[in-house]
């Protein structure tokens, strides 16, 4: 792995929790974060034959107390980015600055005080809890690992946490299998809360849950945010959920942020053609909106992050692509006429009110042809 050396941040030598009032400073800053996964082949001498460019130069800020939504399709790197933020993955290059301190190159020991302050909630409430351990010890683990509470005190704190997230504290000794999906997700939330973190990275926290239970967890996360002053990075592919919970939203495509803005601004006037297509593709549970809206159908699949397209990575599927797009990569910047916080990486941003047109021949034409040409319309024989 090519770990480029970066200058050591003086503050990182002696990281302390107290050294960070500065109210205006963003809680989290990412500077040009890059994460590549090498692809190796061979048995003894593993040659690197390629790399998956999962995250490619992401810079963003997360302010205290806000919820930043991160959306994108499978393979766009949003989960990898989440793991880079919490340093579950080492970065290939770039910097993660948490509360003014560069934590990118901290050793495991140095990182520990910061780990306390940023936690993660995972998607799969079945896969993220050890089935052979009791709920009490799962939630109590962070307290034990960080030497915060022992014995009776730990049990008391765990039961308090269980109560906070709406679990019955008497179920302290049960196993995860004895809980339903929604309750398991509450266990995950309780575990994340145990160390009183400032930042919680939620990776698809409600995707695996039934509709009626989803709302319970969303409300719980909102309540906890108010109660404990939490900051969230909220990853989801369900745009309606992201719109509901987020203050700001960043849209990712193939490892890059293509657009970022306040929620109302992004959903109201998307500028990047990908954002526009994504929004128009999402099916809202309102029949009039769902049926009247002009759907921009993107053709094909997301290209491979092993060999991403040149220039703007979206140009292969973009209805507005021009020759320039395949050559020059557009920077993420404020486009003319947009408010300051609205960044878009596009050479030819969507104008307000502009309707995008699908790039490929309409499917109905293909269907008509199929019906006309395929044999056996009347003379079929059932064997």
């Amino acid at each position, binding site marked *: 792995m090519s770990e480029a050396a970066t200058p050591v941040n003086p503050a990182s030598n002696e990281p302390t929790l107290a050294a960070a009032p500065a109210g205006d400073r963003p809680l989290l800053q990412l500077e040009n974060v890059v994460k590549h996964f090498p692809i190796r082949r061979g048995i003894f001498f593993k040659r690197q034959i390629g790399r998956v460019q999962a995250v490619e130069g992401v810079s963003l800020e997360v302010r205290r107390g806000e919820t930043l939504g991160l959306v994108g*399709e499978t393979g766009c790197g949003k989960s990898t980015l989440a793991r880079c933020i919490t340093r579950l993955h080492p970065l290939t290059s770039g910097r993660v600055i948490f509360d003014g301190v560069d934590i990118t190159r901290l050793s495991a020991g140095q990182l520990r005080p910061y780990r306390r302050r940023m936690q993660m909630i995972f998607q799969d409430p079945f896969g993220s809890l050890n089935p052979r351990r009791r709920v009490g010890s799962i939630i109590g683990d962070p307290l034990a690992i960080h030497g915060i509470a022992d014995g009776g005190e730990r049990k008391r704190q765990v039961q308090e946490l269980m109560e906070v997230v709406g679990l019955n504290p008497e179920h302290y000794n049960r196993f995860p299998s004895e809980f339903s999906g929604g309750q398991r997700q509450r266990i995950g939330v309780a575990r994340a809360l145990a160390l009183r973190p400032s930042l919680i990275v939620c990776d698809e926290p409600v995707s695996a849950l039934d*509709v009626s239970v989803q709302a319970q967890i969303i409300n719980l996360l909102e309540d906890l945010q108010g109660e404990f002053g939490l900051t969230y990075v909220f990853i989801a*592919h369900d745009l309606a959920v992201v*719109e509901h919970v987020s203050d700001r939203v960043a849209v990712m495509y193939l490892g890059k942020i293509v657009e970022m803005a306040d929620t109302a601004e992004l959903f109201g006037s998307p500028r990047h053609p990908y954002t526009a297509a994504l929004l128009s593709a999402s099916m809202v549970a309102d029949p009039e909106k769902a049926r009247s809206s002009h*759907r921009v159908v*993107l053709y094909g699949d997301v290209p491979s992050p092993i060999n991403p397209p040149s220039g703007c990575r979206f140009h292969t599927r973009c209805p507005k692509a021009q020759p320039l797009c395949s050559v020059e990569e557009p920077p993420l910047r404020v486009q003319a006429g947009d408010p300051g916080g609205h960044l878009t990486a596009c050479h030819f941003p969507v104008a307000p009110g502009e309707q995008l047109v699908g790039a490929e021949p309409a499917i109905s034409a*293909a269907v008509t042809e199929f019906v006309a*040409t395929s044999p056996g319309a009347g003379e079929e024989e059932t064997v």
Partner: protein
Amino acid sequence: MSLLSVRDLTVSFPTSDGVVRAVRGLSFDVEAGQTLGIVGETGSGKSVSALSLLGLNPGADVSGSALFEGKELLALGPEQLRAVRGAEIAMIFQDPLSSLHPYYRVGWQICEAIRTHRRTSRAEAMRQAVELLRLVSIPQPERRVQSFPHELSGGMRQRAMIAMALALRPKLLIADEPTTALDATVQAQLMELLGGMQRELGMAMIVITHDLGLVATVADSVLVMYAGRGAERADYRTIFHSPHHPYTRGLLASIPGAAGSGGRLVPIVGQPPSLIRIPSGCAFHPRCPFAMDVCVRDQPPFVPVSGGEGHLSACWLPPDVVGVDAAADAARQRFVEGRRGPAIARLRAAISGARARGGVAHV
């Protein structure tokens, strides 16, 4: 006459823990060329009921009636069912990776579907397979027929499944969570494809899903299921704007962006019930904010209510109280007061007991 007419369908599975009553008296109709959306949560019986129609639930006790073009599906023998399956009623499933055979090439699998039902030469079947893959917008179909399922992306696999399902031009397509595993843009592609096929072929569809957004987009009429029964059935506008059943009402209030929701979400308390021990009376009563004594005691019939033509609901609330606004909720509340006696008091006591122990503080 409806293309498919299901009456009083009951499906149960004997297990060592007890009898799982997955479907308990379900009735619905599908009209030719129309799309019926069946909505429900995990365990509401929506997939089981569809599978049972095609005899795909071995080991289940199935009773009731399902008339497809006048043929009683539930009385057909295995051979006769095989002739219907695929050719007249096709099905696509949620997970295309586990519903395509990993060992055979995609083209071979499509050919097999064609040659099982039609007397066709191998070469002709393969030619049709290529055409079908082209139809579902798979690039380079001549090459892709030689691919194995694992070589295709999720969206491509689902398209291959659709190609196979459409190969024999069925009159009815049952799509069980067809786009759940897929990304939004791929989902939109597939639904446009299915919609186009439906218009051209005059095919009817049953779309089974938990996604109200999908239903709002594609369904003509909607059946909401809860614990193995129909809770409410109506055309799509009525379901979203003038629902009668508190469960439908609750679903709409708990989804961000739904018609009639706004601000904070209002979740439905608790969990869907176990199908081995189904609550007495109306199965929804332990989670229902408008539960009355009668709901604990008696199962409500599935009867017409006043949201619109063909609007049916299984709820003891008066038939003219429909809607998602505050006025409708107030009307529901007014009706409920005075009809709550000892049964509801016991239910309340049980819930508040759990709450005092910290059980459901945040729901």
